[in-house]
């Protein structure tokens, strides 16, 4: 029998706890494959956030530090400064990176901290049951915006890539999506580029991945991918924002 496909050894055999149709699994795999291809698994330290991916340390086959909510970039800074030879990445959702951890994100970028942030944007707090996030779309219904996000009361969503691109310390940031094969391939390319730039000591790199949350969006997985394309992409255009 010929082996035509194998799971990357950079992922453990632990069964993912994510909901059916959630794209975290795809993003995990892309990151893991990149670490394998770059042959840096042994010296990689991942920083897990608070949010759906809180247990990322169980899935990646590399060292991991679990961080307090929003603090992953600060924790990553500590790890990287203590051990500059290590390859350090954070894996954060929108609440973690763009709400409670905004200061840590912005300043890690401003310092040009030589780390990589994988930013999973699905416009909602997943683990806590679907509350409004800093990236929730205007009019979007969530548990805490039951009449739709009212921009008069709740303000506007944050476009993270656009914001971080203004900082001199940001070496590279790109927004990608994992809604179709073509975009998944492009996402992997972006993630690889981010890690390569970290290895070259270029500074702060971030890849924002537009992702789905079928459970809290109240849609099935296929509908969710459609919603991502139709609703999210116009507001959060894909592309390279800084390089």
């Amino acid at each position, binding site marked *: 029998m010929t082996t035509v496909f194998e799971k990357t050894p950079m992922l453990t055999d632990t069964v993912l706890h994510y909901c059916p149709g959630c794209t975290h699994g795809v993003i995990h795999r892309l990151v893991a494959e990149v670490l394998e291809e770059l042959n840096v698994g042994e010296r990689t330290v991942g920083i897990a956030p608070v949010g759906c991916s809180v247990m990322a340390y169980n899935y990646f*086959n590399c060292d991991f*530090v*679990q961080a*307090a909510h929003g603090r992953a970039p600060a924790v990553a*800074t*500590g*790890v990287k400064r203590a051990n500059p030879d290590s390859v350090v990445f954070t894996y954060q959702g929108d609440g973690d990176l763009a709400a409670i951890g905004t*200061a*840590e994100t912005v300043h890690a970028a401003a310092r040009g901290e030589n780390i990589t942030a994988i930013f999973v944007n699905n416009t909602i707090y997943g683990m806590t049951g679907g509350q409004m996030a800093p990236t929730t779309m205007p009019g979007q219904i969530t548990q805490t915006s039951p009449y739709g996000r009212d921009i008069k009361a709740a303000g506007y969503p944050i476009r993270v890539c656009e914001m971080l691109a203004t900082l001199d310390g940001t070496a590279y940031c790109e927004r990608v999506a994992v809604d179709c094969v073509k975009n998944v391939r492009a996402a992997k390319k972006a993630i690889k580029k981010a890690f390569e730039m970290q290895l070259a000591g270029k500074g702060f790199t971030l890849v924002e991945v537009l992702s789905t949350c079928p459970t809290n969006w109240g849609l099935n997985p296929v509908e969710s991918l459609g919603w991502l394309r139709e609703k999210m992409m116009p507001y959060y255009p894909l592309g390279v924002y800084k390089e």
Partner: protein
Amino acid sequence: MSKRILIKGNEAIAEAAIASGCRHFFGYPITPQNELAAHMSRRLPKIGGCYLQAESEVAAINMVYGASAAGVRCMTSSSSPGISLKTEGLSYLAGCDLPAVVINVQRGGPGLGSIQPSQADYFQAVKGGGHGDYRMIVLAPNSVQEMYSHTCKAFDLADQYRLTVMILTDGFLGQMMEPMTVESGQLTVDSEKDWAVGGKRGKRIVNSLFLKPADLEKSNLERFERYKLVEESEPLHEGYMLDDAEIVVAAYGATSRITRNAIDEARSQGVKAGLLRPVTVWPFPKKAFAKAAEHARAFVSAEMSMGQMIEDVELAIRCRRPVLLCSRVGGMAPEPKQIFDAILQADKEAAR
């Protein structure tokens, strides 16, 4: 023995950290601890270390958390309002059993308070401060020399027990200069940390999340076994005219210095007063207090807070003797006269 040098308490702490092998410092400006960070920013880059001014106190303690997870000796320093912000990180450090050294150069509170010396963060330091069941070893130096020696000791204790050690000091000791002698051979040794991440030792996880209650309970119980060991082995106290004292004044840090003068005054007037100074405020030197209660008729708790340490004094002596509070707060310090008066008052109460 090397030369006596005149140095500020805040700078003595910085020098001690460097002598202890600390090469990573993460801080945020706040008075009255600024000389400490400034000293680190001058010294560390020249010896291959990392001084990083964080965007916030919260970020600073989380950088310590990351650096500690990566296995290096590291430190942050702040003053009262900043320590409140750091308590999130203190809880996480405890939950992950990471060693760290945290300095609190206390100032008056609550709120923005003042920038003058205070001891009102006692509860926060010895009872936890952050969420969850946890302890820190808390050392309370009372001289610039001890700012140095306690900091050296703090790094060793932190590694030995894998917990946070706090230096609980105040604006007086941080700002004042006194002679300090750096004894040769005091340089402490960094221990091997086989649990640290990034070391190609196979998969290492630093984590405080236990979704199964039984697992979390087990982790708490194991941690408290270690705390028990600390409580047995590490309490430290210092006595001054204590052995025959009928009135015992409990005071730590700067207040213990002021108390000395009050004790001298009381003795000169024939009152048998003595000082029992907790050097570690956690673990509290309970045995020393229980022993003192055998000859003391009354106690005074002299503190720059509204009666915080007094609770530990009462507990340690099982309320067998009256304990009077002698306090100044808000950045005010007691004068020896006030403590002396409290000694006389305690003497009267005990006679009743």
